[in-house]
């Protein structure tokens, strides 16, 4: 384990960004933090978490796939992909770090999504343990420890120092490159911070939330009468899916640039009415079916297909951002009993 004084943290960022592009959580004028490319003057945010997760660095909101040039009856497929640069993302919380593992299960399973894989291969993740999880946090429900985040390098912060510990080869390489700035320290140096976080976590209102209550037959959960009440407030805005670190549904569309046709993919949401719309109609006619799909996917279908791993990391963004205060916690609490 290594440490660096917080007074020198900008030197650390400067050293990283001298080698690779660096993204850190930084506050904008709205007071919320966003992963921002570091340059002189960009300050590390004190906020608990970013508005959006870091998933966009690996699975961008909009990404070009391929171009076409058409002339008469002829079509040419053009590779427009540019070389991907290595980058480092600093300050990823434990919940978001766990979400990468969930996205990996989708995009790196056969057949591998090469666009996502390229970004994963080029990215180094420096996680940062939470100091004060808040009342919308429930990562521990999914077995995530906010005091001990995974990643290529795990970091902890107390009032004076930032502690770093590399967990992977990629992390090792980066720490080696930064070694002139870092001081080696005792393996237990961050234990006090860890203990403090755990104590906070235990006091939080959602600390006893358990997804296990949900592990029922998919038909019994699907057919629960409770969906008919739960979905009512949902206005289908899709905010929950866009701020969600694990939502990975996407659309593929063509855009005529005037010089050719660009095929791109972009985030999509199962909460939208045209998500499953075909010429012959849609199997999810009302918001009830769309609302149910999102939660069934995260809490039932995904674990069924992925060794029991849930499609939620308890980051709490949907709790904070839903305009009608509907969220996955309410769904879990309401349906938990039914699934048994």
């Amino acid at each position, binding site marked *: 384990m290594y440490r660096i004084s917080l007074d020198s943290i900008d030197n650390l960022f400067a050293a990283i960004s001298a080698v690779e592009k660096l993204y850190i959580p930084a506050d904008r004028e709205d007071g919320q933090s966003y992963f921002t490319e570091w340059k002189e003057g960009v300050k590390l945010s004190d906020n608990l978490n970013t508005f959006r997760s870091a998933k966009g660095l690996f699975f961008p909101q909009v990404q070009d796939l*391929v171009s076409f040039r058409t002339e008469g009856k002829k079509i040419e497929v053009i590779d427009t992909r540019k070389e991907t640069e290595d980058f480092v993302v600093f300050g990823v919380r434990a919940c978001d770090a766990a979400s990468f593992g969930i996205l990996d299960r989708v995009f790196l399973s056969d057949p591998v*999504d090469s666009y996502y894989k390229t970004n994963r291969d080029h990215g180094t993740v420096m996680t940062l343990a939470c100091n004060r999880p808040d009342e919308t946090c429930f990562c521990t429900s999914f077995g995530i420890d906010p005091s001990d985040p995974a990643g290529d390098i795990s970091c902890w912060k107390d009032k004076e120092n930032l502690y770093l510990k590399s967990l992977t080869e990629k992390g090792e390489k980066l720490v080696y490159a930064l070694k002139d700035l870092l001081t080696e320290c005792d393996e237990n140096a961050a234990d006090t911070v860890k203990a403090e976080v755990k104590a906070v976590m235990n006091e939080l209102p959602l600390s006893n939330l358990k997804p296990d209550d949900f592990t029922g037959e*998919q038909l019994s959960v699907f057919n629960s009468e409770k969906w008919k009440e739960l979905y009512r407030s949902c206005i289908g805005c899709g905010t929950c899916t866009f701020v969600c670190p694990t939502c990975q*549904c996407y659309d*593929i569309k063509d855009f005529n640039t005037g010089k050719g046709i660009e095929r791109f993919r972009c985030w999509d949401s199962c909460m939208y009415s045209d998500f499953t719309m075909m010429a012959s109609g849609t199997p999810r006619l009302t918001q009830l079916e769309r609302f149910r*799909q999102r939660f*069934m996917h995260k809490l039932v279908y995904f674990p*069924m297909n992925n060794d029991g791993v849930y499609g939620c990391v308890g980051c709490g963004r949907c709790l904070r951002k839903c305009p009608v205060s509907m969220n996955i916690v309410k769904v879990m609490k309401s349906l938990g009993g039914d699934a048994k």
Partner: protein
Amino acid sequence: MINDTLIPSVAVVTDIRTDTPDVKTFRVVTQDGKKPFDHKPGQCAMLSIPGVGEAMFSITSSPTVKEYLEFSIKKCGCLTSWLHMIEPGQEICIRGPYGNSFPVDTDFVDKDLLFVAGGIGLAPLRSVINYCRANRENYRHIDVVYGARSMDDLVDYQEIISEWQKEEDMNVYLTIDRPQEGWNGHVGFVPNYVTELGFDKTRTVIICGPPIMIKFTLAGLTTLGFEKSQIYTTMEMRMKCGVGKCGRCNIGNKYVCHDGPVFRLDQLSELPDEY
């Protein structure tokens, strides 16, 4: 060139056959005149016209045809309307094959097969029927019950008349919804016709057609004593990726593009009723 399943190859439409007023069958080869890829009966492919759209279509030609792929496509949306306007020589984009297939080399072997199709529902079954005809010794008796709104709406009518009806140990029962001048065959809906014909319950059933046809045919088959485990169907959903990642074609925890499109009815009945 990028190697990713989302990136299509260019193919050429060499022949377009008008089957019915709203169904055309497109023959597709690579730019150097070869079959784009091998497939299994029941599998699908993504076809696209850049700038118009991309969608999943069942491959209607049999895997035993080694020269080309064929797609029977009903004009019903944006991309299909565009496809109905193209002429031979037009290039399109193709990627695949996707999905599972009918168990022609396992569960169907040495079985009496009953195919039930309605309208464009024949398209995915034609691949299976012609595969079974090409490997005739592996299967016992073959029955096909096929219906459409009118005789003009029967897809592959010429092939049915000139080949299927002449095949030994294979019966083809055609029906149309309403009486029509020039039609001497059966008149009536497919479900009723299947019940009238009263097939014995040892047959393996393969069914595809409009949901309402499937629903009533299944009710009839149940009355005749058929079990869900003997009945196969192929599903349709909106798809974008074709490989179980874009998240829109699932029925419960199964992705139609990846785990389907072929489902046995007992498997399907364990999934939420959302299709």
